[in-house]
């Protein structure tokens, strides 16, 4: 089996030492998880593997012989392939064409494409990966993100004269995937492993890592902390290695007892796939929403915010609210969107601007913005959510994922909110920031804020929610207490056939 090892890797950027004795060993036939908080050095290590950065010190050996990864071509020559979080695809072209972007098209000569051969080669590659449900003729844009990822992996298996890959590096591959899509990806990874390929898997999702990996490497502050074999791996051990702290539990206990008048009433709301939505949220309560992809999970909060047209009534503290995001914010709904970069942040503007935006009416007099009020507000909120940033003027693009998410939490807290609407609140966020976010949510419920939280992270949903609503085919089939639920039971409820 081929084997690639990195030892004692050091990499310094200016003043900061990104890597300080990091290491990793990739072996054919193994799925290897790389874990660490944001800033632990995972990305830098991967950039070194990819030949995008040169280490200042350290050894790299391939099958025992020293090698130099001086360029992306060198990394490819060693049989390494990289699949990034943001897939490089051309949405308007077919699956087959996308799979051949990095390969020569089969032609009749003179550049005339042999379409049948192109499709056959693509189909063969997909089949080798065990994927049979994707038609190479489909437009890439019509595939879900999971299938797009499978297509990208299959593309590396197309037979060409070049070196065949033996190792795959996947950076947060499931961040955008639904449960079912992730399952298909895992099946494909198992196929690769059985064929003797090595997989390096970077993820924040503990459960995936525990289920998939043969070996787990944990980095902290640029150092190799531990490499654990499958039988040594446990959730607590990984968290402790990542954070250097011992988290008794990730989820702080519920503090106050909820009760009193309903904060949010949703009556007969209909929007897109959603229909007959009826539920009530009380003060201090966390209502979790679970559902499969296509259940309307992604639309519910947008509909409540008035960002998509809806019918039916949404009442906040007994008052009906208008159908626009402006009306929703004004009524005390605060929204943390699913796609923080696309839907939440103004990436290239000072982070204070993002925080202040929905609250401009309250932060201005006679049409003029009061800068000093904004500065004071943002300073207070940044502390409340434990935001780590150089200054209020820092642009959001320069922050880590966890801190970007905290900017949006700060924005949601500014109102102050009556009801918090959270869409995948900890997606792509490291454990430390997750804990801060959970603490923030708990702090709010203790003050009587209500929370509706949509999440595909089931342990999080069970850990934080008081009640969990199950969304199936656009309908809330049931709402049940979260206490005592297991992940398996919750998943089963999501998959359950509707009783007609």
């Amino acid at each position, binding site marked *: 089996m081929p084997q690639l090892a990195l030892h004692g890797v050091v990499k310094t950027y200016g003043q900061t030492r990104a890597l300080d004795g990091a290491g990793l060993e990739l072996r054919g036939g193994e799925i290897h998880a790389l874990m660490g908080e944001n800033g632990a050095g995972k990305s830098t290590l991967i950039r070194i593997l990819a030949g995008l950065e040169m280490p200042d010190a350290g050894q790299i050996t391939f099958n025992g012989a020293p090698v130099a990864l001086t360029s992306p071509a060198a990394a490819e020559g060693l049989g390494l392939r990289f699949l990034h979080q943001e897939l490089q695809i051309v949405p308007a072209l077919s699956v087959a064409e996308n799979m051949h972007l990095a390969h020569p098209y089969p032609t009749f000569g003179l550049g005339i494409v042999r379409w049948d051969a192109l499709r056959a080669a693509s189909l063969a590659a997909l089949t080798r990966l065990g994927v049979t449900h994707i038609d190479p003729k489909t437009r890439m844009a019509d595939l879900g993100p999971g299938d797009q990822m499978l297509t990208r992996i299959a593309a590396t298996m197309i037979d060409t004269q070049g070196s065949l890959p033996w190792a795959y590096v996947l950076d947060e591959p499931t961040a955008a995937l639904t449960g079912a899509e992730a399952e298909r990806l895992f099946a494909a990874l198992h196929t690769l492993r059985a064929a003797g390929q090595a997989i390096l898997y970077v993820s924040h999702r503990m459960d995936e890592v525990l289920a998939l990996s043969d070996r787990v490497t944990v980095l902290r502050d640029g150092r190799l902390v531990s490499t654990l074999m499958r039988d040594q791996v446990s959730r607590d051990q990984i968290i402790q290695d990542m954070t250097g702290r011992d988290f008794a539990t990730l989820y702080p206990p519920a503090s106050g007892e909820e009760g009193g008048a309903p904060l949010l009433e949703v009556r007969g709301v209909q929007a897109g796939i959603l229909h007959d939505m009826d539920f009530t949220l009380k003060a201090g309560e966390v209502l979790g929403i679970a559902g499969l992809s296509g259940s309307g999970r992604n639309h519910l909060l947008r509909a409540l915010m008035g960002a998509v047209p809806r019918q039916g009534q949404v009442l906040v503290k007994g008052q009906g609210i208008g159908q626009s995001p402006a009306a929703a914010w004004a009524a005390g709904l605060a929204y943390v*969107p699913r796609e923080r970069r*696309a*839907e939440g942040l*103004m*990436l290239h503007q000072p982070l204070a*601007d993002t925080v202040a*935006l929905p609250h*401009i*009416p309250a932060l201005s007099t006679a049409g003029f913005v009061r800068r000093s009020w904004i500065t004071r507000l943002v300073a207070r909120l940044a502390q409340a959510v434990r935001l780590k940033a150089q200054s209020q003027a820092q642009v959001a693009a320069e922050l880590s994922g966890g801190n970007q998410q905290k900017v949006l939490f700060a924005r949601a807290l500014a109102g102050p909110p009556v009801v918090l609407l959270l869409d995948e609140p900890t997606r792509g966020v490291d454990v430390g920031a997750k804990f801060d976010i959970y603490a923030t949510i708990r702090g709010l419920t203790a003050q009587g804020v209500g929370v509706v939280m949509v999440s595909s992270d089931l342990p999080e949903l069970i850990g934080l929610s008081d009640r969990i609503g199950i969304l199936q085919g656009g309908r809330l089939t049931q709402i049940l207490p979260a206490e005592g639920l297991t992940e398996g039971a919750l998943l089963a409820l999501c998959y359950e056939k509707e009783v007609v």
Partner: protein
Amino acid sequence: MVRFLRHYGTLMGMVAIVLVFWALLPDTFMTARNWLNITQQVSMLTVAAVAMTVVMVVGDFDLSVGSMASLSGIVAAVLFTLGWPVPLAVGAALVVGLAGGLVNGVLVSVIGILPFVATLATLTMYSGAAFILSGGKTIFGRDIPQSFADFAKSGLPLGSLGDKPVILPWLTVLALAITGVVFVVLELSTYGRRLYAIGGNAEAARLAGVRVTWLRLTAYGFTGVGAAVAGLMYASRVASANPTQGEGLMLNAIAAVFLGMTVTRHGQPRVVASVLGVLVLGIMDNGLTQLQVDSYVREVLVGLIILLAVSISALGRRATGRR
């Protein structure tokens, strides 16, 4: 060093240009008279560039400002020939500017046409309308009221230097005033902050409660009025109206905003920076004309300056963007 060049490259370039002209034209360039002259020469472009900044803040742009400037001049001049009093004719021209801007706004914001396509179409329409209204002829001479033409010839007396009076031209005063108003609107008002938010991330702004469609539309209204003002200033300056006289304005206005964007901290369009861009273009033009450089050579040089500034900025961003 790279970061320094990225932020101050354009400013240093401007200082260098001034020093070169000063050395080459020791007697005429660095004089109060010449600088007042420059401010008057760039006043129309300043107004057009400042107006362009408003739509560019939102992330759009407007190709029709030049033809709108021509059209507004023609509208005023045609109304003068019909015997309208100056304030009414000028007011009508401004209304035409507002209407033309709002048409652009509706096309881009409500109907959803790409700004390039929508304003390219209205560019030809407004230009055609100017030709139709004027019959393709220049309106000049007795048709233009004296008071309208006098505006550009007079100014605010600032005192005297030696035996000659120093006068700040009204065109300069007007350009400064409009710059001031747009500065207050963009930098200090809630309206302006929302425009910047849309430019930063339109979907995020919408979800944060900003009325994106409406605000984008009104931004075009601002730009239309600004273009009309620039056109009227031009007509007053040359005491005539010609259906093509605003032509050069659009490209220079966009160039000025882009030059300005090389100076600002996050590469955003800002009013003061746009005025700086206008000054760079104006000083180049003034100095090269005095040096009797051929006007075609001048165009090549101005183009090179713009490319140089934007290249340095882009390279600087690439060098500092990744950690």
